[in-house]
């Protein structure tokens, strides 16, 4: 198939040379057809379901059947008593986790991008930050049960050293454990984009700032922080999104005591209340969109966002 389509593209490209290669979009050769087909399939597979998700949240459920009539009932139900509490708790936990990650990841990213002198250490750190994306979440999280539990590592150490007489029981199946589990698993998504944005800051800019007499603190707040904001934005979205939608951590470390949006979705899913599933999922996406928009406004006020991209290109 590849051979065929490449052969079809051959005459056009050969005839026009470089110009033809620069603007292949206009030509309906086999390869471009394949690219267009993939783009179209992707649109149907990703964008359309997300739009359908938002549309579906406007329907309601009556006796396990979905009523296809636009109504805000499902959304109003989202803000009713019990569920609103769950939503608030989810937002609170997700915000706490995100702020903590930001506080730890930003200085680390700065050190990794500009302070680390050994290329090997840098490469190893980057690889270590990337590898967790490819590992199974549940097997990584379930081990924390064995570490935080009543007879786990922490309690054994605490009791062995005589710090406590009885096992500390708030370590597992509590909000603390859920926070902890999320903080561990969401560190890489926060650190990597920030690292990327700081590493793109031209060293000459920092040098110039020093040469022009700026104090280190001024260099930090006027040069490095504004230029790292795109990375911070990406990091916050990559961290807050999964935190709002956290499923594994509350399930395994919350032990049924910490109900988050994911639990609501799970119960709505098993009760066949699909509009509720849609509304809750859309709610999470909506919060992320809102956040992106707010941060875009802040960044635009703070400084010229495109400035950081100019640096990247220049």
């Amino acid at each position: 198939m590849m051979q065929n389509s490449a052969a079809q593209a051959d005459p056009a490209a050969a005839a026009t040379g470089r110009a033809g290669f620069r603007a292949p979009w206009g030509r309906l050769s086999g390869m471009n057809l394949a690219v267009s087909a993939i783009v179209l399939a992707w649109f149907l597979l990703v964008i359309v379901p997300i739009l359908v998700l938002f549309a579906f949240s406007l329907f309601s459920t009556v006796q396990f059947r979905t009523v296809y009539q636009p109504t805000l009932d499902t959304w109003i139900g989202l803000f009713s008593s019990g569920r609103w509490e769950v939503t608030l708790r989810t937002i609170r936990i997700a915000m706490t986790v995100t702020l903590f990650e930001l506080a730890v990841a930003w200085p680390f990213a700065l050190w990794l991008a500009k302070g680390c002198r050994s290329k090997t250490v840098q490469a190893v750190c980057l690889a270590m930050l990337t590898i967790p994306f490819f590992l199974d979440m549940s097997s990584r999280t379930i081990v924390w049960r064995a570490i935080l539990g009543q007879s786990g590592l922490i309690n054994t150490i605490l009791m062995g050293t005589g710090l406590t007489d009885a096992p500390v029981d708030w370590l597992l199946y509590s909000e603390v454990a859920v926070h902890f589990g999320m903080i561990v698993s969401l560190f890489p998504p926060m650190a990597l984009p920030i690292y990327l944005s700081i590493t793109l800051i031209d060293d000459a800019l920092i040098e110039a700032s020093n040469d022009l007499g700026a104090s280190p603190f001024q260099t930090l707040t006027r040069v490095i922080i504004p230029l790292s904001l795109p990375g911070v934005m990406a990091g916050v979205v990559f961290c807050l999104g999964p935190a709002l939608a956290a499923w594994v951590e509350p399930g395994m470390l919350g032990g049924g005591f910490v109900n988050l949006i994911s639990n609501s979705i799970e119960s709505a899913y098993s009760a066949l209340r699909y509009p509720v599933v849609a509304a809750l999922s859309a709610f999470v996406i909506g919060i992320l969109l809102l956040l992106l928009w707010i941060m875009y406004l802040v960044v635009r006020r703070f400084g010229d966002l495109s400035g950081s991209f100019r640096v990247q290109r220049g």
Partner: protein
Amino acid sequence: MEKQAFSIPRIGGRMGPSYAPIWGRLGKWGGFAMLALIYFPLVWLILLSISHNPLGGIPGAFSLEHYRALFASSAWHKPMLASLAIGLAIALICAVCATIVGRALPNLSSPGKVIFLFVVPLFVPGMSMGAALFIMARAVLDLKLGYWSVALGHFVWAFPFALLIVLVVTIRFDQRLAEAGRDLGASNWRVFWDIEFPILMPGIVSAALFGFLMSFNELMRSIFLRGTVETMPVWSWIQAAAQQSQVPIIFSLASLVLLITLPLLCGTFWLLFAWGKRQ
């Protein structure tokens, strides 16, 4: 290049801000602590899997009994085979599609919008994406869910990564090489196979490997899209959530998967960065 990097004043370095040392060190060790917290459970998992009583929490009385129990049991064979098959399919599709799109993107006048379209799933939490695909397939199109829908969910998750990895090598690719080949009379296929492919190879192989690993370890989307079928992570998740008796076996299984996955990943990184640079 290394020399140049050393001559540039760095934060926390000799010419860097003088206030930095303590904060720089704090940042560094804070990050190291997080990395330790990420990797410690993996070590602990392996230690527990060779312990007599993994649920006790403290490794000890080492034995391979759970591995024996794992190989005696056949309950995990079907989900494992399903995950392997879906993973291989995703790897192949990701590599082919990412190569096709990745070669075309650098030649577009404004590739930004197309790239953004392809990375949208990175911004959408797994649960929301799973729910969106589920509602689309089950409630709107009324299809019967199964391995195909799980595979679609995995593809949506894995493809952005595969594409970004292939883009790393296609952007670096010197178009003049292909032009030279064409000027010398090579067909487009020969240009691709003899000139482009060997240079793009690390990226394409990495895209396939990453695609496989993303698919093999995916849980959130599979939970929504699985219908009644089970993949490996879903099976482990159900076992871990339902009752404790199977957990020792899960520890052994997860350890084995880890011991196979980690070298694969390290090899991929080496292939993508060290080997690619050496060329």
